[in-house]
């Protein structure tokens, strides 16, 4: 991957991302500090880390290509990823790409562990490298928003959403995290997160929503309680789980619009 390649990724990312996609409430694996709340000061460091990761992952595949499966410890790929500050920067700012990076790491790792053809492993490596640079693009974009004060500081403790539309936003972030946890191969954590999101968040708004669009609630009920948990439990793969989440997020956008309109028209208390 060259910087011109990464620039293409960033352009695509800017088109794909909206300001609202960035999250300020997170539960990150890494520590929350200046490296996530002052992103701009660390962009150079992150670019170096991404290059370092690309080189390290590439070296693992080089060894596999030359010496075969027995000579490669693929667990080291996870150690590399967990070592860098860039990890928590992307985890706190744009969970969908964070999930894709994990998916890429396990794509390479699984291909090597299964003894796949070197060309297949290289294809997985290319996807991983693409995701890393895409992640750097997301962090750079977030740093601009952060400098302008458009996104809140990342907090170490969650605050409760207070309006129906805030709840929808929170659900969407949590669903992104479900994909990320599944991509990290933490299926039980992902499943628990689905049920917690349903009981602690969706359940609080579905009463209001069903008055507005009963079939939409029926769809989302099924997604929360059947489609998404089953996709995880049956280990259908990150792309399949992400497809379910993406479909849910489209429905949640519709729910957002309905609830926002209903709140505008709601009678006042006094």
């Amino acid at each position, binding site marked *: 991957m060259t910087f011109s390649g990464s620039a293409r990724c960033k352009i695509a990312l800017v088109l794909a991302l909206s300001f609202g996609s960035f999250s300020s409430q997170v539960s990150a694996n890494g520590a929350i500090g200046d490296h996530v709340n002052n992103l701009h000061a660390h962009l150079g460091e992150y670019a170096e880390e991404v290059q370092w990761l690309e080189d390290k992952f590439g070296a693992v595949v080089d060894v596999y290509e030359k010496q075969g499966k027995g000579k490669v410890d693929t667990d080291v790929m996870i150690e590399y990823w967990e070592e860098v500050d860039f990890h928590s920067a992307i985890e706190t700012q744009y969970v969908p790409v964070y999930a894709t990076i994990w998916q890429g790491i396990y794509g390479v790792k699984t291909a090597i562990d299964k003894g796949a053809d070197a060309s297949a492993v290289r294809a997985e490596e290319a996807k991983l490298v693409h995701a890393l640079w895409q992640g750097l693009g997301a962090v750079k974009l977030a740093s601009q928003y952060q400098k302008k004060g458009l996104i809140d500081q990342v907090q170490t403790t969650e*605050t*409760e959403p*207070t*309006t*129906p539309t805030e*709840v929808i936003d929170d659900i969407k972030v949590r669903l992104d995290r479900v994909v990320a946890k599944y991509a990290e191969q933490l299926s039980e954590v992902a499943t628990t997160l689905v*049920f917690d999101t*349903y*009981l*602690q968040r969706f*359940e*609080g*708004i*579905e*009463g*209001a929503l*069903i*008055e*507005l*669009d*009963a079939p939409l*609630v*029926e769809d989302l*009920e099924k997604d*929360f*309680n059947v489609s998404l948990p089953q996709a995880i439990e049956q280990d259908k793969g990150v792309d399949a789980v992400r497809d379910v989440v993406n479909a849910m997020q489209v429905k949640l956008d519709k729910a957002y619009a309905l609830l926002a309109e209903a*709140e505008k028209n*709601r*009678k*006042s*208390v*006094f």
Partner: protein
Amino acid sequence: MQRRTFVQGLGLAGLAGGLGLLPGMSFANPANAVSVDSLPKLKGDLTLYLGRGEGGLYENVLEAIKKKNPGLNLQIRRGATAELANMLVAEAKAGVKRADLFWAVDTGSIGMITNQGLAKPLPDDVVNQLKPGFQYPMWSPVTGRIRTLPYNTERVRADQIPDSVMALADTDLKLGWAPAYASFQSFVTAMRILEGEKATANWLKGVNSKAKKYAGELGVVMGVERGEVDLGFANHYYTLRLKAGKPDAKVDIAYTKNDAGCLVNASGIISLTEGDLPINFIRYLLTKEVQSYLATEANEIPLVAGVAPPVGLTPLSSISPPDLDLRKLADIRPTLDLMRNVGVL
């Protein structure tokens, strides 16, 4: 709770004398709900611990109170009701006091706090605003909800549904339930207290052998409406809300009689600090405006006199809930143990 307090046409004095009052309860003729305009302005600092409520409607109430009282500095800590109750107990044990008020969505958590001696007494005029059966000296119910049996109107006739919840363990009807749901667990707690451990265990086993499990109680009601099951167990407002969004929904509500199947539970508020400010804050929640708002917007049951119940709900006067002091629902641990032991959880 005194079920007969709902029966119309009985004199309240004779009622209380005939039944005997449960500890901590009083029966006074309820005053009509007052208007917010008659209340004093709230001024000063208050910290409220707020249990997660229905879709932000409690938040709307709080915002309206803040707007009406610019001199009030209201800090709110939000979370699951049970977690906040645990936090209050832990803070008290550590000698820390952060909250002046606790607004809980279930009475189990209320009981936990009053049992710890953390609640401050309410003045009589506040207590007396509540309907008979909901008058407690150490906490104030805010709104109520009834346990109901939603049923599919194309698959079941009302006269096929037993009026005893215990009989449903032996029915041929296909049942739907959400045993992991907090309201359901409060209902099982009520059954355990009223019917005993053994009868409740047998009931759980009987229903478990034929019931379809759902994650939440709106899911139960929707499952009933789709015809996946004939009848379910759920709080009343889910059916009302489904019918509001889908007027031709094939679902209606049945009630049992004098048992946990028609338990009336309540959200409630406790003052944790002496003084006028927290008490006056509670008065705002009992105004006809707030009670009416929660009845019309959230289908919750107003518990002060003179405020209309949600449209579509059978009047409380026609329902016969069981005799039960709601604070006893705090005893949830044996319920969870029982449900686990019989394989329901």
